[in-house]
């Protein structure tokens, strides 16, 4: 019996020892700690190639969603948890900038596309990708109901499309907030709340997150829910291509809101020189080509071609709505409150 417990004790120790040995680092190595959000994804081989080319090892640390990431960067600005950060988006950019989280750095390639999406002229944040939030439709389900595909915000409030739309709560969901902002941008600060009252009268359903909306309520996903209209991303249809090779869903390109994700060098970074090279890498052709498939977002660099499935099912929205980052920062809480009054009352 004693031998067995010894074995058990030994078995329990091995993983910790293994954990220790794998986490020890060679100090001579040039390492850049890249703090990012949960959705960041890149194949290991790409990081290995970058290391072989530059001698820099990128150490990826994920820190929750874009909001959590920004909050963490702000809290730790006196003693940063990394050298560079990627994933602060349109919604949170103003907070990171006013709090002085990022140092000034403008990559040489910034004018090859990223500059078009810049949040301001300070050159502290570099755009890396664009993820537009748009209403998605289940084409088959609408055809089955003998309904034409809607196109505009007005269509969504049209009684023909009663009880068909599901959206996310802007207080708890990032696409939910983006869609709210799309309506603010489209209808203006005076009328957007009235539009939501009309949506409510037209039977819009509100759930708290994207998972429930898309995988459970939406009829075009594997969950095969009851509603053929959902707030999701312009990129989502590229993942819902049928066995016949035809897209089963499509994004309404006139209902989109542009969310840009930014990267930058952190103020107080231990290794700022190499951190700049990592920001360069994020807008390099190599990395930009990968972002659609790895993270379901559009590249910002000019001339980077989209994968075939995207060209077919998820074309880039031409003229999505936008709002200035400062406006978002100043009004977010009030908008959510007004939205609550309009929709929940």
């Amino acid at each position, binding site marked *: 019996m004693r031998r067995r417990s010894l074995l058990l004790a030994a078995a329990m120790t091995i993983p910790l020892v293994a954990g220790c040995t794998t986490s020890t680092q060679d100090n001579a190595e040039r390492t850049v700690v890249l703090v990012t959000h949960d959705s960041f994804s890149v194949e290991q081989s790409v990081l290995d190639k970058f290391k072989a080319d530059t001698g820099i090892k990128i150490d990826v640390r994920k820190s929750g969603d874009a909001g*959590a990431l920004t909050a963490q960067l702000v809290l730790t600005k006196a003693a940063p948890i990394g050298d560079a950060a990627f994933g602060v988006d349109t919604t949170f950019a103003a907070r990171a900038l006013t709090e002085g989280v990022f140092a000034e750095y403008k990559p040489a390639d910034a004018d090859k596309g990223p500059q078009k999406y810049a949040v301001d002229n300070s050159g502290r944040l570099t755009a890396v990708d664009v993820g537009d939030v748009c209403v998605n439709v289940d084409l088959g389900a609408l055809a089955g109901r003998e309904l034409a595909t809607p196109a505009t915000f007005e269509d969504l409030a049209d009684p023909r499309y009663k009880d068909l739309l599901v959206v996310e*709560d802007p*207080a708890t969901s990032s696409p939910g907030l983006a869609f709210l902002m799309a309506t603010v941008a489209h209808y203006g600060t005076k009328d957007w709340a009235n539009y939501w009252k009309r949506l409510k009268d037209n039977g819009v359903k509100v759930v708290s997150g994207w998972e429930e909306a898309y995988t459970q309520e939406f009829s075009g996903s*594997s969950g095969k829910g009851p509603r053929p209209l959902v707030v999701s991303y312009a*990129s989502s249809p590229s993942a819902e291509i049928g066995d016949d090779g035809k897209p089963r869903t499509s994004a309404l390109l006139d209902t989109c809101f542009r969310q840009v994700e930014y990267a930058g060098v952190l103020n107080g970074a231990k290794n700022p020189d190499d951190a700049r090279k990592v920001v360069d890498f994020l807008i390099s052709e190599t990395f930009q080509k990968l972002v659609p498939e790895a993270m379901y977002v559009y590249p910002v660099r000019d001339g980077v071609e989209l994968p075939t499935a995207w060209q077919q099912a998820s074309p880039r929205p031409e003229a999505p709505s936008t709002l200035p980052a400062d406006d978002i920062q100043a009004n977010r809480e009030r908008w959510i409150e007004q939205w609550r009054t309009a929709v929940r009352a």
Partner: protein
Amino acid sequence: MAHGRPGLTGALATAALPLGFLAVFFLWPVVAIVRLGLGPGVGAVLSSPDTWSIVGFTLGQAAAATAVAVLTGLPVAFLLARTSLWGNGFVRAAVMVPFVLPTVVVGLAFRSLFGDGGPLAIILANAFFNVAVVARTVAALWSHVDRRAEDAARSLGASRWRTFFSVTLPVLRPAISSSAAVVFLFCATSFGVVLLLGGGEYATLETEIYLRTVQLFDLTGAAALSMLQLASVVAVLVIGAILRRRSTALRLRGRADTARRPVGGEWGIVAAAWGVVVALMVPIVSLVAKSFESGLDGYRAIGGTGFRGSLQVTGWEAVLNSLRAATDATWLALVLGVLTCVALVTLGRTRARPSLIETIDTAMMLPLGVSAVTVGFGYLITLDALPGDLRTSPLLVPLAQALVVTPLVIRTLLPVLRSIDDRLRQAAATLGAAPWQVWREVDIPLAARSFLAATAFAYAVALGEFGATSFLARPESATLPVVIGRLVARPGELNNQLAYASCTLLMLVTVAIVITVDRLRVGSVGEF
């Protein structure tokens, strides 16, 4: 006799490690983040009626879910502790499965079972996660309780119910109140379930602290709510400690002596227990069924990294990562938990004031009742002062998990250790046993089963832990719950299939581990 009553100093020295751990990895970060937010706005938040309706809903739903978990957990505890029936091994493992399931997946399952969710769905989902806490904690004590007192009451003419309420229940009270306290804290701080099933219309302190901290960066509001959360948790724990105060020493027996074939009306309780197990299986089966919706595609994909490489690890690597992280957290929690229990039991034998014991006991429970966001963000502004900057180190994962798992170890082990008749220890000491020999000969054999129960528990909690892991794990060390969370958040049928297949895999791993741990028999309890 002098040997049998080790001094206060020795006990406090034993408690130093767990208390030091608590101070560094819990109190310091929480105090720091709350202090950062303290400001004139705190009063406004505390006096707002909205705040108090959130407090009311938080405590109300947690109390209701705890009641459901206790009422459904007790028949299962009876089945596991008092009967020797075919299928008990399965039940013992099956009740643990809900514990490891990611909340997002369970939330989605309850949404499809209960329409759009709502308070009832929130309460049932929270109870679903926690039936195991009651069933296994109570069973751990019950299986050692001498049957003869009940038999005597029955033969003196007491009805079955009368016997239960006046003989059995008082004996089980420490374990019931122990587990109820744990369940209450889990439910009061449940996050994903409330968001998903509340549909945005219901908020708890936990969800509100998250929204204020992460979305609005309103640290003042978050600090006010964190203090409220802490105050209500302490209040509940103090009530629990008072309820546990009058615990009686029992004649604890070996399990073989107490389990037998049910007779007469006991079959009714067995049926109720199986009813509970079947109810627990409904959401579980619906998840497994989902994983087979497009045949075996999801399972074939486990060897890969998701649709278009959504993940940076394969399913198998995620299993290994999960096991590694859970193992580290488990042994750490066992060390801390056992040390705390030894210190508390030893203190109980000295003339130490009961309030000192209760304070240490309550303090170790606190991490269960405080928002993961508060603790996690507290780490960010404190731990860089320690050598090696743990803030983004993978070592922080088992440390943070152990904080949550240790209270469970204590709550499983302590009721049994406290219920051991002190006369046994005194007898051993009189016969010349040194203090460590008293432990070896008396306490350890009697508590062995509960130690195993605690181990299985600790492992399951650590396996299913999502909060700390998703914040701290590196992409290459993603665990199964983290992988499932990522997959569910992506479009595409294959990702969805893979998510549910990974869930099934997580359940199988859990069942295998619980069964293995349960089968380890550390010696057998002797006759006293």
